[in-house]
C-alpha cells in the first residue's frame, strides 16, 4: 500500500454485460489524492457502471483497480469503510424513518463505535439539513429529501474518499448550493471526491480534475486547467464600435475575428493581450471591457463527446 498513491487507480477496467454490451471499455482512471474529480459523460456512457465496478458491486470482465491503495475485491474490508458512496440515487427502506435507515447502515459497519452512533447520525442529518424530518418515514420523503438522506449516509463517519453519483440530482437551488459548499469544505479538509455529474457549472466551480466518458471509454482525463487549455482562449472586446475593434484585431494578425453587436472577439493566438489593448487605445477604439476568455467547458465537453442528442444504446 502506498499512502500517497492515487485515491483511485484502474488499469484496463472493463465491463461487458451479459447482453454483450461493453459498458466500460478498458479505462485507466487515476484520481489523485485530495482532488475533486469531475466524472463526466453523456447518458449511458458508463459512469454509474464504472462506480459499481469501483465499489465491487459488479465484477469486471477484465482489468483491475485499487482504492486508497487496496486492491479490490480482496481489500474491500479495509478500503471501503473509508469510502462514502452514493450510487445511482438513494435507496432506503420505505417504512423506516430517515434516522432509522441511517442506524441500519451504521449497524452494518463493523469498524465504527456503536456508542457514538446516535451522535454521528444526528451530525450527518444536520449537515444535510434533514434533522427536522429525521423521524418521518422514508416513504413520505420528497425527492430532494431522499437525495439528502443518501448524502447524509456518506457522512456517517469521517471519510478519505467520497464517490458520488449525481449527488445534487433533485435538489432545490439552496440544497445544490449547500451540497457544493459541503463538498468544497470536505475537499479543503483533505477528502478526495469523485463526483459524477451533468452540471458543468458545478464542475467548473469545485473540481480540480476532470475525466470524460464516452461510449464506455475514458476519452479525456486531466486537471481542469489543462483540459481547458486544450481549447484555445479567445480575446473578447466589449465596445460600441465592434467593427473598428475587429479591424484592429485583424490588423494585429489575429485569427477567427468575429464582430458582434457590442463585442469583437478573436482567437488569442500568440499575441500578448497587453499589445492588443495598446493597439485598441492607439486607434481610439472606445473599450468598455476586455477579457481573455478560456474555452467554455461545455464546448470542450461537446467536442469530446459529440453533438448528438440520442443516447448510444
Amino acid at each position, binding site marked *: 500500500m502506498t499512502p500517497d498513491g492515487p485515491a483511485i487507480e484502474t488499469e484496463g477496467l472493463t465491463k461487458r454485460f451479459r447482453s454483450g454490451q461493453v459498458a466500460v471499455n478498458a479505462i485507466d482512471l487515476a484520481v489523485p489524492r485530495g482532488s475533486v474529480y469531475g466524472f463526466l459523460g453523456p447518458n449511458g456512457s458508463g459512469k454509474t457502471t464504472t462506480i*459499481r465496478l469501483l*465499489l*465491487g*458491486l*459488479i*465484477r469486471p470482465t477484465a482489468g483491475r483497480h485499487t482504492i486508497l491503495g487496496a486492491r479490490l475485491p480482496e481489500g*474491500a*474490508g*479495509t478500503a*471501503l*469503510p*473509508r*469510502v462514502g*458512496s452514493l*450510487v*445511482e*440515487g438513494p*435507496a*432506503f*427502506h*420505505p*417504512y*423506516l424513518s430517515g434516522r432509522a435507515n441511517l*442506524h*441500519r*447502515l451504521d*449497524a*452494518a*459497519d*463493523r*469498524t*465504527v*463505535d*456503536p456508542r457514538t452512533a446516535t451522535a*454521528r447520525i444526528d*451530525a*450527518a442529518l*444536520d*449537515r*444535510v*439539513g434533514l434533522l427536522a424530518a429525521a423521524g418521518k418515514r422514508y416513504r413520505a420523503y420528497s425527492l430532494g429529501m431522499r437525495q439528502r438522506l443518501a448524502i447524509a*449516509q456518506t*457522512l456517517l*463517519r*469521517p*471519510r*478519505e474518499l467520497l464517490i458520488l453519483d449525481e449527488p445534487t440530482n433533485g435538489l432545490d437551488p439552496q*440544497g445544490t448550493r*449547500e451540497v457544493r*459548499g*459541503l463538498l468544497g*469544505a*470536505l475537499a479543503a*479538509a*483533505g*477528502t478526495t471526491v469523485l463526483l459524477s455529474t451533468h452540471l458543468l457549472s458545478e464542475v467548473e466551480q469545485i473540481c480540480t480534475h476532470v475525466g470524460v466518458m464516452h461510449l464506455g471509454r475514458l476519452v479525456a482525463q486531466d486537471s481542469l486547467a489543462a483540459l481547458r487549455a486544450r481549447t484555445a482562449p479567445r480575446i473578447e472586446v466589449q465596445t460600441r464600435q465592434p467593427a473598428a475593434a475587429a479591424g484592429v484585431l485583424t490588423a494585429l494578425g489575429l485569427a477567427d475575428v468575429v464582430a458582434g453587436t457590442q463585442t469583437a472577439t478573436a482567437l488569442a493566438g500568440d499575441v500578448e493581450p497587453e499589445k492588443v489593448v495598446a493597439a485598441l487605445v492607439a486607434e481610439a477604439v472606445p473599450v468598455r471591457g476586455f477579457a481573455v476568455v478560456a474555452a467554455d467547458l461545455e464546448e470542450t465537453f461537446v467536442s469530446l463527446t459529440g453533438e448528438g442528442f440520442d443516447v448510444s444504446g
Partner: protein
Amino acid sequence: MSVADSLPATGLPIGVPAALAPRRFGTRFFRSELWLIFGRRRNWAGGLVLASVPIILAIAVKVSEPQPGDGPDFISQITGNGLFVALAALVLELPLFLPLAVGAIAGDAVAGEANLGTLRYLLAVPVHRTRLLLVKFGAITVFAFTAVALVAVVGSVIGLVLFGGGPLTTLSGSQLPFAEGLWRLLLVCLYMTACLAALGAIGMFVSTLTEQPIGATIAIVMLAIVSQILDSIPQLSAIHEYLPTHYWLAFGDLLRDPIATGQIGNGLGLAWTYTVVFLAAAWARFASRDVSS
C-alpha cells in the same frame, strides 16, 4: 445545513487514521436485521393471523365438544388438556400458514433488499456477502422459532384458560406431569423450527435468484405445497423420504413415552442436509453475482 460550524467536528483530519479494526464479534447488524423483520407492520399482521388459529380452534371446540375419535388426534384431546390446543393449532398451521410466514421472510432476504436498492448500499458499507447471508439466515431462523412459539404460547394460554391443565396423556397412553408436558411442547417447537429453517435456507437461495421478493415467496410456498402433495402419492414412495416436508409431522413422536427418536432423527438429519446444501447454493450464487439493481 450548517457546513461551516459542523465541519471542524466531523471533517477528516488528514493523517489521523480512523479506527478501522473490525470488531471480531458484533451482534449489532444481526439485531438490526431482527428489528427490520419484527418492526415491520406486515409481519405483525401475519403474526396476528398465526395467533388467531389457536384462538378460533379453542373457542370452536369449547362451543361444540367433539366426540372422541372425531377429527385429528390432537383436537379430540383438547378437552382433556389445554396444551393440546397448541399442538392441534401447530398441526393445522404447518401445511400452509407457517411455510407462508417463513417464505415471506426468506423471499425478502436478498430479493427484497435488491428490489429496494438497499443491497448495493449494504455491500458498499461494506458488508461481506458471506456475512450478509449468514446474518439473514440467522434472522430467518429466529423468525421461524418466534412464529412457531407464538402459536404454541397463544394456544397454551387459551387452552389452559378454557380447558385447564394437569397431566398430559401421551400418544403412548401414559401420563406425564404438567411441567414435563410443557418441556415436550418446547421440544416440538424446536423441531419445527429446524424443519422451517431448512425451508428458509431453500427460500434464501431462491431469493438470490431474483429481484422480486413476492415471486420468491410464492416459489417457496409452492415448493412446500408440491412437496406435501408428492408426499401423499403412494406410488412415489421411493422419493418420499427425501422430500423437505416428509418428516414435518413426525413431531408427534416427541409426545410419546419415552420419546421415539427414529423419525425425529431422520427429520433433523434431512433438515440439516437441506440447510447446508441450500446455504452453500445461495452462497455460490450470491458471492460473485453482479448487484446492478
